[in-house]
């Protein structure tokens, strides 16, 4: 089943502080629901193990996470493909940061997820509510903790040497319906 969510919370931090946090897999993972481990393969490619519960179903997903179209400090897209016993999930998301003023940043995000298998056929009725709750909680906590965390360590700040992908439009999703 397909679900789409979006939001645009305001973060009480300058954009220069927000960007390093949103591309730091370990920082993101601390707030991600059910994240058990993060393995960084390269700065844009992570393997994440995370557990979900929908109704009576508890699942551990192995997720392949890839950042693309990275355009610091404003924009990137995320592609997530994950599998769990009898189930699968695909997420495409994008995030853009907008400087509101020197100390405030707008963090706009949208995500489309496709859920397949047992979790869709058994948990469909509960899925939308659960996913919405998890997602909203994540962004609220995430936005708050970026402000609380203060400026990131110097090393984490982006430098001109960081690889930046050309800002091409994301490839069309092969699983989208005709």
């Amino acid at each position, binding site marked *: *089943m*397909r679900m789409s969510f979006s939001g645009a919370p305001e973060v009480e931090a300058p954009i220069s502080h927000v960007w390093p946090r949103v591309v730091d897999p370990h920082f993101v993972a601390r707030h991600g629901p059910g994240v058990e481990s993060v393995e960084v393969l390269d700065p844009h490619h992570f393997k994440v193990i995370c557990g979900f519960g929908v109704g009576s179903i508890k699942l551990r997903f192995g997720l392949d996470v890839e950042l693309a179209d990275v355009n610091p400090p404003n924009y990137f897209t995320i592609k997530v493909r994950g599998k769990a016993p009898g189930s*699968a999930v*695909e997420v495409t998301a994008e995030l853009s940061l907008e400087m509101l003023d020197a100390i405030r940043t707008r963090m706009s995000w949208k995500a489309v997820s496709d859920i*397949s298998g047992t979790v869709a*056929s058994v948990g469909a009725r509960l899925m939308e509510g659960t996913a919405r709750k998890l997602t909203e909680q994540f962004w609220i906590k995430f936005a708050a903790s970026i402000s609380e965390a203060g400026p990131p360590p110097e090393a984490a700040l982006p430098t001109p040497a960081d690889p930046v992908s050309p800002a091409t439009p994301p490839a069309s999703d092969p699983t989208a319906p005709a």
Partner: protein
Amino acid sequence: MATLFGSGIKRREDPRLITGQATYVDDVKLPGLAYAVFARSPYAHAKITRIDVSAARQAPGVIAVYTGADVKDRLVPVPCAWNVPNCDLKIPAHPLLAYDKVRYAGDAVAMVIAETRAQARDAVDLVDVDYEPLRATADPEQATQPGAARLHEEIPDNIGFTWVVSGGDAAAAFQHAEVAVSQRIVQQRLLPTAMEPRAAVAQYNRGSGQLTLWATSQNPHIHRFLCSVMLKLPEHRIRVIAPEVGGGFGSKIPAYPDEALVSFAAMELGIPVKWTEDRSENYKVTIHGRDHIEYVEMCGTRDGKITGIRTRVYAGLGAYASTAAPGIPTILHGLVYSGSYMIPNIHGTIYGVYTNGTPVDAYRGAGRPEAAYLIERLVDIFARKIGMDPIEVRRRNFIPKDKFPYTVATGLIYDSGNYEAALDKALGILDLKAFRAEQAKARKDGRYLGMGLVSYIEICGLGPSQVAGAVGFGGGLYDSAIVRVYPTGVVKVYIGASPHGQGEETTFAQIVASEFGYPVENVEIIHGDTDNTPQGWGTYGSRTTAVCGSAVKVAALRVKEKAKLLAAHLLEANEADLEWKDDAFRVKGSPDKAKGMAELALMANVAWNMPPGMEPGLEATAFFDPTNFVYPFGTHICTVEVDEQTGQVKILRYIAVDDCGPPINPMIVDGQIHGGVIQGIGEGLQEIAVYDEEAQLVTGTMMDYAVPKASQMPHIEVAHTITPSPVNPLGVKGCGEAGTIASAACLVNAVCDALAPLGITHIDKPLTPARVWAAIQKAKGATP
């Protein structure tokens, strides 16, 4: 005794069924039994890029893991057994385990065999498959559109067949018609939901080379044959046993990969292997029913004469062609477009469409409920258009009772009927005038009452084998019985059909006991084991009593014929001087000189004093092949109240008048009608299998798929008319599917009648409150 045939005695099978003493497949326990669990695709459509079973193989208790690559060259794909002729039917291979591509969510990719069921389930989670998802659709109309996902390389438009039924000249009829109506109708996918899911236990004896397969089967002889094909094992090496089977509704007719794979594992490993579906698996991989998107039209005169019917139907087949699938929306659907009426011009185009859904096959009524629904909906819509009472329209178009046997435009020959009698009887029970008055009063009060009526026919008692061959059915449709009388006079009857809840252990015993002047306790009916029953074709299509029951009757008469010769010999009387009276052959004029069946059985079995040339023993075998189908019919009436504020439909009364010929056991007939009506009401009110845009089944549990509950069901007022069929010696028709065929249409007709003041002519079933409410809002011009 003579009244045993026709008496509503209690079902003899029930005590063991309701006291936990019955043996179902999952109750079969064998020494060293291992358990199979399948790894199934979460995707509805995807390429398999990698399968790694190494972790699963090393999991505790695991004995073996098989993938598609392991079995594809050793086993034959699942056969489709109904090759409907005169069309371009394309049957793509249905591998037992998918190896290159999965085509529906639930398609199996690996089988794990372990020492316990729990170990097998745990190990299945370790089967690691990489998929490359592809676009998917479960909508049979969308799947034919350009650019739709293609399931099978060789079928670019996903159209598995285009089949046309035609009689008269429908194009001309519509061109010159005074009135024509049309409607798009969706007949939703349904989940058969037998109380017992499927299961299989396979045991192979390497010494004798014999495979025994306990399986949830409606037709063990067909399963023996189809397993023989898949396993490449000769038929005489396979014994299929269908022990107690907890309902089927068509879902236990087809061959599935699972039973064959379990057999394969038992043969490979030399240990017995069991597999039992859970409910989620049942909903995902056991066949579904219906799934039509229909464009239907009816034309006629302003004075109510129907002159034509025309359809274009997209019938979903699901991902693969299941065993009988091509025959359901064609032979069992298109050919009955005349319904109970004289409709001279008929044209239907049926597209069988492959989609990324679970395969669709026969579900209670199979093709005929879809036909009855579209015909009976159209009659109501047509009647509304010409401003005539739909009851009157039906009367003006009924095939009159003196026209039988009657050949309809599609070529079927209806055996016998008296449609108006059933209609009148139902109307009498209702008290139409009183209801119309109540309805008029309610409308003034702003309440919405409605009455729906359906005068259905069905084609059943499948059927003459010659016709089976002509319509491409890959088997015969006769059935068989051995009536064996033991020395003490008690009788065992071995039948080719395979009852699984329909009560033939009672009704067939009534047939034999009536003939033999016995209490019913003296007769046992044995079924469901291919090693001791004669070749038969199973229980489906309301055929068991009409066809197999007739074989029982013929075999019993053969036994009686021999017994009479023996009685004449023992009584030293001329055979012509004997008559059967009460419970014995008696010499006419000297009724004390008599021989009953028990004594004759003893004398035949000991053979001390046989007539010259007569063989010992007392048994007979009969294979009965009917000369035609039987065509049960009836009228159902439903009254409802629709809550305008919530869209809730409340059934006020449900009246069922059915004619299935002379009932052998009226209580069992009524039970079959009850069950059928309830299943149809479920279809009409609330059952729907929902797939999302990615062809994921989102109604995969009984919390999401709304099987009717006892508290929701109305009291069903059942009555009968009796019009014997001339095509079998019992005169019986069939009653297993009748209720389902009539009731969904009846309910929708009632709701559309209730909402007529709002101008509503049609709402697609199921009539959930949300749908009805939305239709009301739309009719009122509001945006729902």
